[in-house]
């Protein structure tokens, strides 16, 4: 039997890698994928908890996380398309209109 903490550690590692991807990549597309990565790592830990605590609530929550992830991907990609069309850039360090 695999201990619960192993799953959580795996989840944490993938979460961290997703976070690093979001923080360091210039390409907005990859940044969005990193966010998906982070959401999936959370799903892993939710399902692991759900299994070990013998309670399906965690899996129901995973369901909602997937819903939000789908919505987020749709909106994020739409923004990306609009961005690519209007500014013809896909790199975050070239979009600095909010500069103070």
């Amino acid at each position, binding site marked *: 039997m695999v201990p619960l903490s192993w799953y959580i550690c795996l989840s944490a590692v993938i979460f961290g890698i997703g976070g690093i991807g979001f923080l360091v990549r210039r390409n907005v597309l990859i940044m969005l994928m990193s966010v998906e990565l982070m959401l999936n790592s959370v799903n892993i830990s939710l399902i692991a908890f759900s299994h070990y605590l013998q309670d399906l609530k965690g899996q129901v929550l995973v369901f909602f996380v997937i819903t939000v992830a789908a919505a987020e991907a749709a909106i994020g990609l739409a923004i990306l398309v609009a961005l690519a069309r209007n500014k013809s850039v896909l790199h*975050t360090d070239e979009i600095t209109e909010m500069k*103070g």
Partner: protein
Amino acid sequence: MLNYVLIPLLPLAAFAVNILFSNAIGRRAHLIALPAVAGSFLLSVYALIGVQAGTIINQDIYSWIVSGSFKASIGFLIDQLTVVMLIVVTSISLLVHIYSVGYMHDDDGYARFFSYLSLFTFSMLMLVMSNNLLQLYFGWEAVGLCSYLLIGFWYEKKSAADAGKKAFIVNRFGDFGFALGILLIFVSLGSVHYADIFSGVGALQGRTINIAGFNFDLITLIALLLFCGAVGKSAQMPLHVWLPDAMEGPTPVSALIHAATMVTAGVFMIARFNPVFTLSDTAMAVVAIVGASTSLFAATIALVQNDIKRIIAYSTVSQLGYMVLACGVGAFGAGVFHLFTHAYFKALLFLGAGSVMHAMAGNVDIQKMGGLKKYMPATYWTFLLASLSIAGVPGFAGFFSKDEILWLAYNNGALGKVLWASGTLVAALTAFYSFRIIFLAFHGKFRGTAEEEHHLHESPKVITIPLILLAVGAVSAGWIGIPAAFGGANHFAEFLAPVVGHSAVTASHTEEMMVVALSIAAALGGIGMAYLFYSVKPCAPLILAGMFRKVYRLLWNKYYIDEIYDAILVRPSKWAASYLLVRVTDGRIIEGIVNGVPSMIKAFGDRLRKLQSGNLQHYAFGMVAGLFVILTVIFIAVSR
């Protein structure tokens, strides 16, 4: 209880609707304001019937402020005095509302005007229905505000805007004293509720308060501070200067606020606080002397003025002096009785003057009028009835109330005799200047231009009907208080007795008859003199003015009071404002702070804005670092 609560709430609702939707409502504003005031009037009549049946209500309905031992509530006290005021306020307000429909017909601010009138009615009702000092003070200031708004109603006109400011600022002097009086009452009695004050004030007798090394009698000080408020609000000397200027407002406003209701708030307040005032002989004497001298002083000014509204305004100051005098000699009932009758005939005089101005296209100079009787009979006859009433011709309302005051003053010892003599003299002057208007404006030949003469017309029905209704009041309002000497029962004094008590009468009916005869003689003498001067020998006034040039100039310039105030108060404060405030405080200190703080912030911000690189990931660094810190803190907190 609901029917009592609705009395002030109906006008408030009308105000809210009219002010919020003034653009959409426009010329239909009276359709909202009129029913509301009419409803208040009917409910007031209902309240009167209730009080006559013996239901006195003194109930808190809402806890307004609670702070430590201080407690103020919104509450209603419905007793004999209140219902008299309710009837006066709502009935005059209703008639003025009707009149305004015609008078303000072409004004752009129609909805605004009606909303202010409703707000005023609400405030005045809150003032008179209050069962505690704080709510009274709220109403007191709110009516002051409405007065300011309505005097300056035509704010494009500089004189109107100035008059509004003057009224507001002069009232501040009185209200400052009034507020101090309220604080002193709270400090010494621990409550602002009438019931607590009246039951506790007796225990304060003989106590003194030390201010700056001098000992003052506590009750006298309280009474005099409260009286300060009345001096401002009821335009007594030396704070009377705002009332004549207040005539810059629309005439219905002058009738409602500056003749019938708001200015009588001071008298109402003194009558309400009669348990406090009667405990201090000094305060009572001050009240009586201020009242008597105001009435004499204003009456003499009114003799020579030419502006029809100003004459009536000075007449109002003079009559208010009468009421205050009555309170000062302990005849609170008589003061309120005069307030009651005065409301009707003075409102009628103002509304009549408004009707005349309507016909004269806004001209107010009575020297330019004449012979108006022919053109506007309804205005003439109602104006005549009001003048007969104010002059104190037997049978009319003013006669009974004025004689009651004079008679009770006569009974008030040696000081009372002097006050009585002065009051009788004022009665003669009153009759004279009232009929001066009648003879100059309505009789003789028209002295204006031909064009103006062509324009002369009787006012529409919506204006004359309130005049006729008020004329009924001006004639008959006194009949409910016919004194015993004439075989009446003096219902009015008996009705008010539970609140204000009876006045001591020492002299006999024979003496009363003598007093009455003298005042009738004064009234008829005044009328006769006016007839002689302005109808029989029109050159007589000029000759007299020539003979007593200095006196005439003094009266014409209203004793130079405005100029004196200008020299000792207005100009020094203007200098202080322009030099000390503008140059030193504003120029150096405030601008230094105002410019210094932003430049500091700018210097700081210039450095701080470097943080805002605009790169999305730099902000994300912040988020993740924050997440790390939060995780660490939670972990440490949990593992401990």
